[in-house]
């Protein structure tokens, strides 16, 4: 639910990083926060429990410059991935304009990725949104684990499990090293803002 302020000529757009617990959503935002310091006016807000798990959300506003004379503010959020936090997860989704689904490439997390995607679909439905109609990017995170000899899911398996029907743009990534973190973000911003242009004519 983007907001256009015709007086300040400013647009606010909400992008949410979704996915299973410990998948690397917060790590994505932390990387962006470091890498794009000069576009970020305020501190990153995080609501965490101990052990660094997200309790409510992380929040990072980033300025991407102007489109048709309007300055565009992208509000990046993460949800808490743990299954038990569904009520708060749903609150964060309110008014979402674009989604990055951060899947965990670890072999052991295969089932959790599938369940989290199903949960996303259901939560969107409670806001009358259809997962097929909202800008979405898939990120297959933690590809670096292969270097440490930890078994990871082949990309094809992840594509088949998560993206065979959605056919969203997808990126293999490593949020700890920053691999494809910026590419993922740029892609979701491009998709989301693309649908804004007409409105700003």
């Amino acid at each position, binding site marked *: 639910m983007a*907001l256009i302020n015709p007086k300040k000529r400013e647009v606010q757009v909400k992008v949410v990083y979704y996915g299973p617990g410990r998948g690397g959503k917060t790590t994505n935002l932390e990387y962006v926060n470091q890498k794009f310091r000069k576009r970020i006016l305020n*501190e990153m807000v995080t609501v965490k429990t101990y052990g660094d798990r997200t309790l409510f959300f992380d929040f990072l*506003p980033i300025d991407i410059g102007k489109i048709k004379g309007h300055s565009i503010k992208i509000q990046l959020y993460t949800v808490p991935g743990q299954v038990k936090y569904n009520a708060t997860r749903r609150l964060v989704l309110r008014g979402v304009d674009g989604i990055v689904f951060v899947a965990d490439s670890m072999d052991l997390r295969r089932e959790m990725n599938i369940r989290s995607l199903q949960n996303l679909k259901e939560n969107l439905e409670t806001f009358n949104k259809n997962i097929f109609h909202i800008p979405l990017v898939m990120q297959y995170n933690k590809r670096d684990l292969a270097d440490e000899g930890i078994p990871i899911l082949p990309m094809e398996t992840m594509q088949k499990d998560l993206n065979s029907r959605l056919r969203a743009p997808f990126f293999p990534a490593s949020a700890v090293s920053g691999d494809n973190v910026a590419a993922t973000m740029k892609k979701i911003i491009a998709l989301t803002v693309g649908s804004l242009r007409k409105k700003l004519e």
Partner: protein
Amino acid sequence: MDFTIDFTKEQIESIEDILQDELIDLGVQSVILMDLAGNVIVNLDSGDSSHDVFSLAALAAGNYGAVSAMANIIGEQEFSLLFHKGEEESIHFSKVVEDLLLLTIFNKNVSLGFLRLKVAEAIKRIQMLI
């Protein structure tokens, strides 16, 4: 993409006038009109505070949503008073219409009773505009 209530420039200016007149001129430090997605629609302050309004709005939207969900669990429609009192500054939340919230930050020089009265008046005037 769908949009929050579309505000015209004129509407925003009228809302700013109301908030200035009802709240800022009476000593309130800052007011934020926002939606429940966490977007800031109007933000005014008395000039001597510089809060991070975008973060405040994101947290307020989450907080308001969480409190409303708690109300539902115990069988209430909503809690009518949402207020956090600090040593120096306090925060008051009020629903304007479905999906819109008014957040007020004020200090000890303004009493809660008076503030609530003024917020109610401001909200009534804003409702007539949208």
